[in-house]
C-alpha cells in the first residue's frame, strides 16, 4: 500500500472520505454509533473544508433522508449516515429514493434493533432493508470502508445504475476503533470520482415532474428498471474496485473476496468485520492441515449469485455466518439467499447456517473454530441442523 498512514478513529476516516468526495448536501440525525461521523463532518463544515456543501441539521432520520431526496433530485451529490432505529425510521423513504432513482449514499453503522434496545453491533438494521432497492456493500475493516465510500458514489451515480447505496460498517468495532489508515487524497479522489451529472433534475429552466403516481398499467416496468440498474451495478462494483486499485493502489475484492478458497473443502461465508477474525482462524486451521477457506461477501445487494455459485462449486460444504435473523424463518439472510441461489443449479454443495453476534455479542476465534469443527462433522455424517445459533447462552433460558 502506498500513501501516508495516520492513526485515526474509524469514523474520522469515513468522514474524511465523504469530505474528499465533494458532497453538496449532507443531512443527518445523530444516533449511536454513527455520531462521530456526523460530528466530524460538522467540524469540517465549520472550518470551511467542504466547499459547495450545505449541512442540514434535521429533526429526525426520516427528515434526513427526505431532505436528501429533494437535494438529490435537484442535482446535488448527497450523503447521510445512520444506524439501527434511524435506518428503520427511514424505511419508507428508502423505497422512495430507490424508486425515484436517486443515487444517495449512506453509511450505515450497523447496530442491533430494538426491542430489546441495544447499541451494539449486528446486521439486523441493514439486512432488514434489503428489499428497498438500495445497493448494499459491507466492509471488513476501516481502510476498506474508507475506500468503499468513494467507490459507492461512483457506482451509485453511474448513469446506468442510478440507485442509492448503503455502505455498511460494524458499529463500535469499526466506527470507534483507532487504526492506521491511509486517508483518501483529494487529488486522487478527484481523478477517481467524476462530478455528479444527472439527466433529470428539478430545474426551472427545464421543468419536470418527479414522483408522479403510476397506475397498474405502468408500475411494474419501474420495478423492472430498478432491477436492471442492480444487474448493471454488479459489473460497476467490480469496475469501481479495479479503477480504485489503479489510482490508489489498494484492492479489497470486487463483489466477493475469496480467501484461501480454491482448494477449500469447508467454505465459510460472511460479511463485515467478523471476516477479519475468520481469516485469522483460517490461517491457524490451515497450519493444522484443515482445508478451510472463506468467501467474503462485499456486495449483498445486488446479490452476486453467479460469482457465489462459481466460488462454492468445488467445496464439500458451505457455512454461512449471519449477524442477523429472520424471526419466524429462523435463518440469517446470507444463509437463505446462498442456499436459494444454489437450489436450482447443478451445484450439489450442502449449506449450513450459523447465526451469531447478535446485539453485539463478541465472536471470539473459538466460536469460529467450533463452527469449522461442526462443518467437518457435517461433511462426514450429513447436516443435522441446517440453521442454528453459534453462541446461544443456554444458561439464560
Amino acid at each position, binding site marked *: 500500500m502506498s500513501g501516508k498512514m495516520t492513526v485515526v478513529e474509524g469514523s474520522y476516516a469515513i468522514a474524511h472520505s465523504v469530505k474528499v468526495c465533494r458532497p*453538496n*448536501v449532507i*443531512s443527518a440525525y445523530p444516533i449511536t454509533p454513527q455520531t462521530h461521523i456526523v460530528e466530524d463532518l460538522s467540524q469540517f463544515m465549520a472550518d470551511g473544508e467542504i466547499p*459547495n*456543501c*450545505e449541512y*442540514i*441539521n*434535521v*429533526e*429526525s432520520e*426520516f*427528515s*434526513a433522508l*427526505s*431532505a*436528501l*431526496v*429533494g*437535494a*438529490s*433530485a*435537484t*442535482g*446535488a451529490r*448527497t450523503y447521510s449516515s445512520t444506524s439501527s432505529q434511524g435506518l428503520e425510521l427511514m424505511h*419508507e*423513504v428508502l423505497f*422512495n429514493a430507490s424508486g*425515484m432513482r436517486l443515487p444517495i449514499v449512506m453509511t450505515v453503522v450497523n447496530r442491533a434493533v430494538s426491542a430489546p434496545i441495544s447499541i451494539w453491533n449486528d446486521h439486523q438494521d441493514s439486512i432488514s432493508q434489503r428489499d428497498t432497492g438500495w445497493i448494499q456493500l459491507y466492509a471488513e475493516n476501516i481502510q476498506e470502508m474508507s475506500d468503499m465510500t468513494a467507490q459507492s458514489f461512483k457506482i451509485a451515480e453511474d448513469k446506468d445504475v442510478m440507485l442509492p447505496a448503503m455502505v455498511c460498517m460494524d458499529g463500535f468495532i469499526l466506527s470507534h476503533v483507532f487504526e492506521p489508515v491511509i486517508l483518501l487524497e483529494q487529488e486522487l479522489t478527484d481523478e477517481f470520482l467524476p462530478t455528479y451529472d444527472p439527466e433529470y433534475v*428539478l*430545474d*426551472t429552466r*427545464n*421543468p*419536470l*415532474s*418527479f*414522483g*408522479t*403516481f*403510476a*397506475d397498474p398499467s*405502468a408500475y411494474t416496468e419501474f420495478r423492472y428498471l430498478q432491477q436492471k440498474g442492480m444487474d448493471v451495478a454488479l459489473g460497476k462494483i467490480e469496475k469501481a474496485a479495479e479503477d480504485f486499485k489503479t489510482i490508489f493502489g489498494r484492492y479489497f475484492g470486487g463483489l466477493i473476496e475469496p480467501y484461501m478458497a480454491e482448494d477449500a473443502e469447508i467454505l465459510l461465508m460472511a460479511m463485515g468485520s467478523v471476516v477479519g477474525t475468520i481469516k485469522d482462524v483460517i490461517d491457524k486451521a490451515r497450519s493444522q492441515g484443515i482445508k478451510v477457506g472463506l468467501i467474503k461477501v462485499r456486495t449483498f445487494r445486488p446479490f452476486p449469485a453467479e460469482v457465489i455459485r462459481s466460488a462454492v462449486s468445488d467445496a464439500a460444504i458451505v457455512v454461512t455466518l449471519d449477524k442477523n435473523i429472520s424471526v419466524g424463518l429462523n435463518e440469517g439472510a446470507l444463509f437463505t439467499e446462498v442456499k436459494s441461489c444454489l437450489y436450482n443449479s447443478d451445484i450439489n454443495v450442502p449449506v449450513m447456517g450459523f447465526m451469531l453476534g447478535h446485539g453485539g455479542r463478541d465472536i471470539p476465534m473459538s466460536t469460529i473454530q467450533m463452527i469449522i469443527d461442526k462443518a467437518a462433522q457435517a461433511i462426514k455424517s450429513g447436516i443435522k441442523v441446517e440453521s442454528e445459533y453459534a453462541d446461544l447462552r443456554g444458561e439464560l433460558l
Partner: protein
Amino acid sequence: MSRLAPGHRGCAGCCDAMAANFVLEAVGDDAIVVNPTGCLEVMTTPYPESAWEVPWIHSLFENTASVASGIEAALRALGRKGDTKVIAMGGDGATVDIGILGISGAFERGDDITYVCIDNEAYMNTGVQRSGATPFNASTSTSPPGSQSFGNSRPKKNMPAIILAHGSPYVATTSISYPKDMMRKVKKAVDIEGATYIHAHAPCATGWRFDTSKTVEIGKLAVETALWPLYEIEDGEITSVRKVKKPKPVEEYLKAQGRFKHLFTMEGGKEEISKIQDIANWNVEHYGLL
C-alpha cells in the same frame, strides 16, 4: 403559463386546484414546488401526465417540508439559487398531522421555503377522514355523528400559532374565496427570507357536501361568520386583520354544508351550534375582527 394545466383529475369546483393556481400565479415560473401525497398530487400527476408547468416533486406523505429544505440547500450548494422560490404545498392532513415533524424542523432551522397549507379540513383524498384540522362537530367518515356523537369532538388545531412559536417572520391566513388577498399574501411570503407560512382555507364541495358552484360562496361565509379570521403576523406582531363589521350567525355557514346538517336535526344540536358560535365569538375578540 403560471397555473395548473387543464386536464387534471380534480373534482369539478376543486378547492385544491384553485389554491394551487393562486399560489402559482402569485409566484410565477421561477419556483420549484413540493407536494405531499394527497388530492392535489394525485389529481395532477397520473403517470405519464403532469398538470404542473414548474419543476415539481412528490416524495411521500409526511416529508414535504424536509424535501423542500433539501431542495433549497441543494440550490445554494450548487450555486443555482438565484431568485428561485421553493414552495411546499400540502393539505391539512399532511401539514398539521403527519407532516408536522418535518415542518417543525424546517421552521426551527428557518430554511428559506414557503409552506402553503391547503386546508379543506379532512383527509379528502382517502375518503374524507378526520384530521387535526377538522373543525368542531364536523361530520367526517372517521368522526361521524351518531347516537353517541355530534361528529368531531375537538377544535381545529391552530397551526398558524404553532408556526408562530417557531419564530417564523411571516405567518398569514388566507382563503381561496379571497383570491387577490391570498395572492398578495403568498407573494409577500415568498419574498421574505426564511421559513414563511400561508394557511389557506379551502372549501371542498365533495367532502363538505355542497354544490360545486358554491366553493367561493361557502369560503366567504366562513370568513363572514368569524370562524375563519384572515390576518397577517409579521415578526410576531399582527399587522393586518380583515375586519368583519357584522359577523353573520354561524348557522348560515353551517346549514349550507352537508357535513354539519346533523346539528340541525339531532337532539342537542342547537346546543352544539352555540358552542361553535362561541368559537366565532372568541375569534372576534382575540383577533380584533370588529
